[in-house]
């Protein structure tokens, strides 16, 4: 099957600052992918490049077989929720949707109306002065009403209260249920989406450093606590996160069972205790990979 999203060595810099330094990844259709990365790592830049809102300096991008050509027609088949949803202040909710319906060729008025109703939106609400929750809901309707098969969601729940968040999440799951939809989500509280994600891409240092299937993380990530034998040294550059390096006791977070097994069998440890790590925790620790968290 052809991947829904393909990124090959995508690079982008702003002035002298290189933000993306060769991003390579691909997403199969129907997959839900979490884009994990700290603030400022380039998540929004990556989204914009995928949406043909920003030009990549080099590398190739394909979304549903289409490359960004500068005309923005790619956005017809992608549902996008930006980090800060913004609409024209002089419009009402209804007018925003009506305006979008005239631009998006696949816009389903029936679906849009149903979403508006489900989310409890009032079409007469003016955008100027609307609450963050309202804007978030409108953003969701705009992203979903034209039935895209790829969704790019940049912090879709940030700033929203618990109930609105649940609404959005429910609709997201509803979309997944409706068909083969590919989702690429950047969310700070990735644990929220833990049940929905298939895969996690770790964006660090301008590249996709690693790709982790969520099931693997859930079942295999563990915390190792142990004491190194006299004179034993761990190999450098291991994809583990050190929680403690002072003193004789080492605490490591390991994300794969095979590596944990290897360390246990290496004989470098006097005693080694293995405890499973909750998915939310392992997602947090992933962020610390290669940031001085590596054991070297």
């Amino acid at each position, binding site marked *: 099957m052809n991947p829904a999203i393909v990124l090959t060595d995508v690079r982008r810099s702003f002035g002298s600052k290189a933000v993306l330094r060769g991003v390579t990844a691909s997403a199969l259709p129907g997959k*839900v992918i979490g884009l994990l990365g700290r603030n400022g790592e380039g998540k929004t830049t990556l989204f914009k490049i995928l949406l043909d809102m920003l030009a990549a300096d080099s590398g190739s991008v394909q979304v549903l077989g289409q490359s960004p050509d500068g005309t923005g027609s790619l956005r017809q088949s992608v549902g996008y929720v930006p980090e800060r949803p913004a609409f024209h202040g002089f419009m009402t909710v209804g007018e925003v949707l009506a305006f979008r319906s005239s631009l998006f060729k696949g816009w389903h008025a029936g679906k849009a109306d149903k979403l508006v109703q489900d989310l409890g939106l009032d079409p007469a609400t003016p955008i100027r002065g609307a609450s963050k929750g309202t804007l978030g809901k409108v953003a969701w309707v705009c992203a979903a009403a034209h039935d895209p098969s790829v969704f790019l969601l940049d912090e879709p729940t940030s700033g929203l209260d618990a109930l609105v968040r649940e609404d959005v999440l*429910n609709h997201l799951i509803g979309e*997944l*249920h409706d068909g083969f939809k590919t989702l690429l989500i950047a969310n700070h509280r990735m644990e929220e989406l*833990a*049940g929905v994600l*298939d895969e996690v891409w770790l964006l660090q240092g301008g590249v996709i450093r690693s790709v982790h299937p969520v099931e693997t993380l859930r079942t295999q*990530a563990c915390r190792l606590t142990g004491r190194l034998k006299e004179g034993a040294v761990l190999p450098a550059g291991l994809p583990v996160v050190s929680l403690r390096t002072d003193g004789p006791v080492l605490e490591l977070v390991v994300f794969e069972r095979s590596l944990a097994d290897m360390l246990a069998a290496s004989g470098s440890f006097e005693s080694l205790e293995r405890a*499973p790590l909750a998915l*939310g925790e392992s997602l947090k620790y992933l962020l610390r990979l290669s940031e001085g968290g590596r054991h070297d």
Partner: protein
Amino acid sequence: MIQIDQTSPIPIYDQIKAGLKGLVTKGLLRPGDQAPSIRSLALELKVNPNTVARAFRELSGEGFLESRRGDGNYISEAALGQAKDGLATVRQALRHALLGARLAGLPWNDIEEVVGKTKEEQP
């Protein structure tokens, strides 16, 4: 209806299977009842519908669920027995774990401590 633990290392689909089997064991679902729809279960548990679909597929494969007239999944007749069988497997796994712990040198006090803690968490 069922609960899943996001922090547990057990795969979600396994948890769903176990949860459904538990419902049958507790008598809340009987053979012939319609199983909850994939969509409603996914929404309730906040998980990917594919995961729910996988759990249902496996349960169908095991004979726990059967799809009738193309309109959903129904608890099969053999479900009760399966659930009970399933429990037997769980018992065996628990025995296995205890033996392993003892062999590893874990004292009974510690084992009982673990049991006590778990009881607190999951009464």
